[in-house]
C-alpha cells in the first residue's frame, strides 16, 4: 500500500516476471550448469586421452556458452529481481529480508563463479601442457560454484512454495531448508544436465567434426542425457509429494490454462511425446546414429524448453494465492492485513491513491482492480479481466469477489470492505460492457489523465 502500482500492458505483471524468469532458467540451468558440465568434461577427456577433437569441441562450446551466460543469463537473473522490484515491491522486499544473508552469500558465490569462468575462458590458450590439469580443476571449481549458486536460489524458490514452519517460527533455517528444497534442487540439476547435453549435442551435430569423433562424442552426450531424463519423472514425483494438496489439485488447469482445461489428455500426450522425442534423440546419439539424432535434437530442445516453461508455470500456480505462503498474498497484501482492510477499507489506506486525489468511482474501481487483480490479470491483454467477467451480472460479480479464494483456490482473496467490493463489481461490470475507457491502463495509481466515459 506504500508503493504506487504499475501494470505492464498486454503481458501483465505475472507473465512479464515469468518470461524473464524462464529465459534465465533456460540459460542458468541449460548453459551455466548443463553445457558447462559438458565443457569441463570434454576438456578433461581431451586432456586425458590427448585428443585435440575433445579439446576443440570443449572450447567451441565454451565460447558459445560464455557469450550467452554472461550476456543474457546473468542479466536476466538480475532481471527477475529488477522486474519484481517494480511490479511486486513488497514481495521482493520481504524475500530480501528473510534471505538477507543467503542473498549476500549469493553475491559472493556469484562473483567467484564469474571470475572463475572468466579466468577459465581467458587462460585457455595460456595454461597448456602441464598446466592443462590446473585448467581442468579450474573448470571443476566453476561447476562447484555454480552448484552453490543454484542451491542458494533454490532455497529461496522452495520457500516461496513451501515455507513449512516459517510463518510461525520465522527463522532462516526453517525458511531455507524447506520441504521442496532438496527435491527441487535435484530436479533442477537433472533438467540442467538434460538441457546441457542437448545443447552440446546440437552444437556437435550442427558443426563440422571428424565423423568418428562425432559418433564418439554423441555417444557420451546421449548417455548423459538419457540418464538425466530418466531421473526427471522420479524427482517430479518426489517434489510434488511435498506440495500442499490444496494447490496440487489445480495443476492440470495451471499448465493447460482455461483454453485446454477440458482436454487434459493434451497434457499427457504432450508429456509422452516430449519424453519419447528426447529419449529417442539421446538413444540414437548413444547408439552412434549421428544423422538420425541430428533430425531429433532441435525438436528435443524445443520440447524441453516447453517443459521448463510448463514446470515454472505450474510452480507459480501451486503457490496459489500467496506470494509468500503464510505471510503475503499475491496481491501484496499481508495475511493479517486482509481482515484489517476488510474492516477499514483498502481505499482509505492507499497512500498513493489518496495523494492523487482522484477518488471518483471509476478511479476507485480502477485502483481496486489494480491492487487486487493486476498481479495476474490485464485489461485487454493476456488473462483479460473483461473476458473473465463477461456476461456476468453486476451482483454476480459482487458475490464472486466475496468468495474468490474459496471458489478458485489459487486466486488470492479480495481485500476491502463490502462497499469497495460493490465499487469494483460495478467497475468490472461496466468494463466488460466496454463502457469505461481508461486512458492509461498501465498505471492506475497514479492514474495518468482523465477517465473518459462513453
Amino acid at each position, binding site marked *: 500500500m*506504500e508503493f*504506487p502500482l*504499475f501494470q505492464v500492458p498486454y503481458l501483465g505483471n505475472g507473465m512479464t516476471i515469468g518470461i*524473464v524468469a524462464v529465459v534465465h532458467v533456460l540459460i542458468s540451468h541449460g548453459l551455466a550448469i548443463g553445457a558447462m558440465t559438458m565443457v569441463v568434461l570434454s576438456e578433461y577427456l581431451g586432456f586425458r586421452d590427448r585428443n585435440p577433437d575433445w579439446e576443440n569441441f570443449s572450447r567451441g562450446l565454451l*565460447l558459445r556458452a*560464455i*557469450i550467452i551466460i554472461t*550476456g543474457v543469463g*546473468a*542479466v*536476466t537473473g538480475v532481471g527477475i529481481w*529488477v*522486474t519484481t*522490484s*517494480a511490479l511486486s*515491491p513488497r514481495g*521482493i*522486499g520481504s524475500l*530480501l*529480508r528473510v534471505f*538477507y544473508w543467503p*542473498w*549476500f552469500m549469493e*553475491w559472493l558465490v*556469484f*562473483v567467484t563463479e564469474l*571470475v572463475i569462468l*572468466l579466468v577459465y575462458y581467458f587462460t585457455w590458450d595460456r595454461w597448456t601442457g602441464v598446466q592443462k590439469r590446473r585448467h581442468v580443476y579450474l573448470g571443476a571449481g566453476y561447476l562447484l560454484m555454480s552448484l552453490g549458486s543454484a542451491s542458494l536460489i533454490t532455497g529461496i524458490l522452495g520457500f516461496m512454495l513451501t515455507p513449512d514452519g516459517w510463518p*510461525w517460527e520465522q527463522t532462516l533455517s526453517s525458511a531455507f531448508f524447506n520441504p521442496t528444497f532438496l527435491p527441487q534442487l535435484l530436479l533442477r540439476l537433472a533438467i540442467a544436465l538434460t538441457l546441457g547435453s542437448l545443447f552440446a549435442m546440437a552444437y556437435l551435430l550442427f558443426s563440422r567434426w571428424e565423423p568418428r569423433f562425432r559418433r564418439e562424442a554423441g555417444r557420451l552426450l546421449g548417455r548423459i542425457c538419457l540418464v538425466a531424463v530418466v531421473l526427471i519423472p522420479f524427482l517430479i514425483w518426489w517434489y510434488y509429494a511435498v506440495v500442499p494438496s490444496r494447490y*496440487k*489439485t489445480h495443476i492440470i*488447469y495451471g499448465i*493447460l490454462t482455461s483454453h485446454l*482445461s*477440458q482436454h*487434459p489428455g493434451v497434457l499427457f500426450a504432450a508429456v509422452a511425446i516430449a519424453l519419447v522425442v528426447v529419449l529417442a534423440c539421446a538413444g540414437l546419439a548413444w547408439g552412434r546414429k549421428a544423422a538420425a539424432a541430428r533430425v531429433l535434437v532441435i525438436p528435443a530442445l524445443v520440447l524441453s524448453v516447453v517443459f521448463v516453461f510448463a514446470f515454472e508455470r505450474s510452480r507459480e500456480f501451486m503457490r496459489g494465492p500467496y506470494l509468500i*505462503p*503464510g*505471510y503475503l498474498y499475491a496481491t501484496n497484501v*499481508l*495475511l*493479517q*492485513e*486482509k*481482515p*484489517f482492510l476488510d474492516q477499514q477499507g483498502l481505499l482509505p489506506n492507499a497512500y*498513493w491513491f489518496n*495523494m*492523487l486525489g482522484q477518488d471518483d468511482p471509476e478511479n476507485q474501481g480502477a485502483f481496486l482492480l489494480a491492487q487486487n487483480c493486476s498481479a495476474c490479470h490485464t485489461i485487454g491483454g493476456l488473462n483479460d479481466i473483461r473476458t473473465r467477467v463477461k*456476461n*456476468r*451480472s453486476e*451482483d454476480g460479480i459482487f*458475490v464472486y469477489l466475496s468468495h474468490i479464494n*474459496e471458489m478458485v*483456490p489459487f486466486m488470492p482473496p479480495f481485500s476491502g470492505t463490502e462497499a469497495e467490493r460493490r465499487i469494483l463489481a460495478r467497475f468490472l461490470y461496466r468494463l466488460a460492457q466496454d463502457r469505461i475507457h481508461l486512458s*492509461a491502463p498501465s498505471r492506475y495509481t*497514479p492514474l*495518468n*489523465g482523465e477517465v473518459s466515459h462513453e
Partner: protein
Amino acid sequence: MNRLFDLLLAKPLPEAWLQGLLFFAFTLHLLFVLITLGTAILAVFFFVDFHWGGRSRELLLDRRILRTFMAHKSLAVVLGVAPLLLMQVAFATSFFTATNLLAPYWMFFIALLIIAFLSFDILGHGIETHHRYHLAIALLALAALLLVPGILVAVLATAENSGQWLAIAKGGFRLPGPLAWHWLFRFLHILGASLVMGAVFHYFFTAKAATGRAALLPWISAGVLLQVPLGLLLYTSLLVKPDPIIQAVLVVGVVGAVLLLWVIFGAVRQGAPLTLRTVLPLVMLVLVAMLLTRQLLQNKQLLPLEKTVAANAREYGQVLEPHVAEALSAYRTALPFSYNNAETIFLQSCAFCHGKNADGRGVEAKNLLIPPENLTAIRTTRPYLYHIILSGVSGTGMGYFTIYDRYQVDDLMAYLARKYQVFARPGDIPHPIAPPALAQAEATYAKTCAACHGPDGGGSPVSRGFQPPPPDLRIYSLVPQRAFQVITQGYPGTMMPGFGEFAEEVRWGLVKTVYGKRPE
C-alpha cells in the same frame, strides 16, 4: 509511504554497517561499470579511427579493447548484486517507489543490456564481419549500453528526491524540470568518468605499444578536463544543499582531480609514460571521494524519510497485531484442504449461491437479483449441464468454471446426479389435468410462451439476446412442483413473468406441455 510492514522494517545489520557495506559494494560495482562504459566507447571510437581516420591498423587497439569487454561487463553485473540488495534493504521505501514510478524504463534496461552485451561480445569474440556491419552493430550496442546509466541515474535521482514523487506520478513517467536537469548533468558526469576510467584501464593493461598509449592519453586528459564543467553543472543542479562535511569530501575529490591533471600534463611535457603507481591512487581517490559525496547526499535526503516511515510502520504493525493469530490459523486450516473431490468443489465453489443442500438458498442468494437455481429441481442432460458449468448463464451470476479440468467437472456432475438425480426424467405431474385444460395450456404455450421459448421449446429469435436467455426446454426441465412455481410466479430478475392468473389446472397443463418438448 506511511505504511510499511514488519519484514521491511527488519534491518539485518546496524545502520552504520549497512552504509559501510553499501559504500564498499557500490564503489566496486561502479568501478567496473565505468570501465565497461569506457571500454565500449573507446572500442567504437578506435574502430572508426582505424578504418576511416587513417590511424595505423596494426595497433589492433579496438579489437584488444573490445576483447576485454566480456570481463568488465560480467563483473559490473555481478558486482551490482550487492549494491542492489543493500539499497533495497537500507532504503526500501524510496528505492521501490522510484523503481515503480519509472517502471517502464527501469525494466527496459535489462533488454538494453542484453542487446549491448550480446552485440559487443559477438563482435569481440565470435564473428568477423564487414567493417560497415561491424560499425552498425557496434553503434546500436553502444546506444543501448549508454542508455542504461541514464535509466539508473533517473531511478536514483528519483529515489533521493521524494519531494518530486507526486510530480513524476502526475506527469506520467517524466522527470519534472529541476530533477530533469539534475539527471542530465549526473548522467553526463558518469559518461565523463567512464571515459577516464576506461582510458586509464586500457592505457595500463591493454595498450601494448607506446603508440597505443599515446592514442589513449588524450582520452584521459580530455575526460578529466570535461569532468570539471560537468561537475560544476551537476553541483549547481543539486536539489538539496550539501552540508560542510559533504563539501569537504567533494573538495578532496576535486583536489584529487587537479593532481591527476597535473600528473598527466607533467608526463606529456616530459614525454614520459604515466605510471600506475601515481595514477591509480589518484584515480581511486577521486572515485572514492565522488561516490562518498553521492552517498552522503543520498543519506541526507533519504535517512530522515526512512526513519519516519519506520516509525509509522511500527505503529501500523501494532494495528495489525491482533489479526496475526487469526490469519495464521486460517492459513493452517486452508493448506491441507484439497479440491480433489466433487463434494469439496461443490461446497467451495457452488454452495455460497446454490446452498449447501443445493436448494438455491446459499448465503449469497439474498445478494442476487436473479436467484440461484434450486439444483435439486433440475432435470437435464449431461451435455447441457456440462455446457452450463463451462459457459455459465449470461446475464446472471452463474459464471464459467473452466478453472476445473475435465476430470473435476465430470466428478462434479456425477456427484450432482448421484445426490440430486439431475439427469433423471422430471417425474409425474401430481395433479389431474382434464383434456380442455391441457388444450388451453397448449394454446397458451403457442400464443404466449412460444414468443420467447420457441414453438419447440428451444428458444426464439427474440429471446436469443435476453440476459439471461430462456433455457432450452428440449433438454432442460425442472421437477413438476418447481416448474409449476416458476410458471405461477415467474423467474425474478428475468424476462419470465408469472402466470398466476391462469387456473391451477391450466398451469399444470403448461408444465405438461413444457415436458412434452423433451423427446422421450
